[in-house]
């Protein structure tokens, strides 16, 4: 659905994105992550034909975003960051106007405006001025606008920024429902959100792609890919540490004292789970154990590692 090849955008004396390559398949829901200023919005603006790239190509549904921009735009619903809207228009008026611009007319326009208003729970505010709406409603008006022409692809730049937790949850549910009929590329800073809704994640940092994979694989491939916590009371903690290291899938053990107890943090090989062997070891050696738990790494940690890992 999206195909990006060697995409580069330079401003005077500053490279926003450099040599990006990625693809998004039809029906995917992809999270586009990166620190502020990494080039997410620039990439999205190029994909939406708002900015031309300095070099490289990008296409949407097979149409080049620069040379066949009208066709590309017909297949796209784009919501810019901070959802710019006309404050002096009423919600219905705005949706009618946007629908007409997107080449809907007559009964089809009325039908679509009604549908998206219902989908985004806007029916109660159709006659309100956009300027008087709360941030959550404005966000939904923006989202409703992107859905009007039932585009194949939705590009959403930070759709949940500035919302309260309840509104975030509503928007997230909405996006999850949309994923059934649309391909979605969305950027956000809320990583648990991405873990919940995205099938694939592209992490971009300083204009380059650092990683592109499923959230699970990203987390698994990290240096600090999860670990096991063991709190026990062996007679000789230092010797116990050596014994723990003799278990094959354990890579690293760190030890800290917690009163009479010793707290071991174990790093294990990706994909292995030696908890059972640990339990056997502890019971053979007659250690008292008060905690044996598996701690999964989060996407947030993967993100931090990828984007701060090579900070000068």
């Amino acid at each position, binding site marked *: 659905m999206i195909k990006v090849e060697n995409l580069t955008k330079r401003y005077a004396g500053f490279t926003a994105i450099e040599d990006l390559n990625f693809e998004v398949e039809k029906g995917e829901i992809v999270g586009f992550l990166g620190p502020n200023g990494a080039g997410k919005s620039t990439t999205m603006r190029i994909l939406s*034909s*708002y900015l031309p790239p300095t070099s490289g190509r990008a296409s949407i549904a097979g149409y080049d975003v620069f040379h066949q921009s009208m066709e590309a735009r017909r297949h796209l619903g784009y919501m810019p960051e901070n959802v710019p*809207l006309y404050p002096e228009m009423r919600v219905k008026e705005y949706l009618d106007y946007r629908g007409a611009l997107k080449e809907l007319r007559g009964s089809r326009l009325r039908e679509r405006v009604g549908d998206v208003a219902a989908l985004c729970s806007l029916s109660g505010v159709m006659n309100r001025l956009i300027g008087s709406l709360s941030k959550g409603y404005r966000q939904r008006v923006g989202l409703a*606008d992107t859905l009007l022409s039932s585009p194949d692809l939705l590009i959403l730049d930070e759709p949940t920024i500035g919302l309260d937790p309840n509104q975030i949850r509503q928007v997230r549910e909405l996006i999850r429902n949309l994923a059934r009929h649309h391909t979605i590329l969305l950027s956000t800073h809320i990583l648990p959100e991405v873990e919940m809704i995205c099938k694939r994640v592209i992490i971009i940092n300083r204009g380059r792609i650092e990683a592109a994979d499923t959230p699970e694989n990203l987390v698994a491939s990290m240096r600090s890919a999860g670990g096991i916590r063991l709190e026990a009371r062996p007679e000789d903690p230092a010797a116990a540490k050596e014994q723990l290291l003799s278990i094959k899938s354990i890579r690293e053990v760190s030890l800290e004292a917690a009163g009479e107890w010793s707290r071991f943090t174990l790093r294990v090989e990706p994909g292995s789970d030696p908890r059972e062997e640990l339990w056997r070891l502890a019971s053979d050696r007659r250690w008292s154990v008060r905690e044996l738990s598996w701690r999964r790494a989060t996407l947030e940690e993967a993100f931090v590692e990828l984007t701060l890992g090579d900070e000068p």
Partner: protein
Amino acid sequence: MRKFLILLSREVRASFCAPTAYIVLCFFLLLTGFNFYMGISLLSRGPSEVTVVEAFFNSIPFWIGFILIFPPVTMRVFSEEMKLGTLETLMTAPVRPWQVVLAKFCGAMVFYIVLWLPSFLYFIVFEQITGTQAAQATGAYLGSYLLLLLVGMFFISLGCFASALTQDQIVAAVISFCMIALFFFAGLLSFFSPNAAPVLRDIVSYFSTLEHMGEFSKGILDSRRLVFYGSATCVMLILTHYVFQFRRWKA
């Protein structure tokens, strides 16, 4: 064409939603009312060679006020959208940049024409009450309003250009006022320095709005003026289109 009309209707609605619209309308009514009063009191002093239409359209206070109305009418057209960020939603819908530029220009033109509508009443009332002709012939009316339309087109295109240059409405207003004032006062050169070289005076009179109005309000429709204002407007709109694209792509 359809999209142009959709964009145009939004422009027109937006210009009548802004409070500046009503301030400009009121200011303009006051100005034309005062000017009409001045014209009549001039005529009431005794027999005169000029008609009320000529007196109305050829006074300096009228023109000074006239050039002041363009900046507030045009300053928001691009600047506001750039500031709000709505340009991004607008330009990522399937519309072409020239449709947007033309719609914004025509939207401002519609407002400008609405500004002038009440002034017809003055002359109708004048003829009803005094029983004398307001102009020498119908052509003089047509000529005056035709020239207003032409000058308005050009000044509005200057204003649109200024608005496309910046996202700050005040800056846009200042730029457009400077350009309009420069153009207008350059045309007055022949009044201010009668000793200027004849060539210079000829050139200046070619774009002197005041001299053009002198002719048109007598009913002399000079096709050179049509060409001049028409082509100047086209040039400004093409420049606006370029600036608009350039700014967007540079942003």
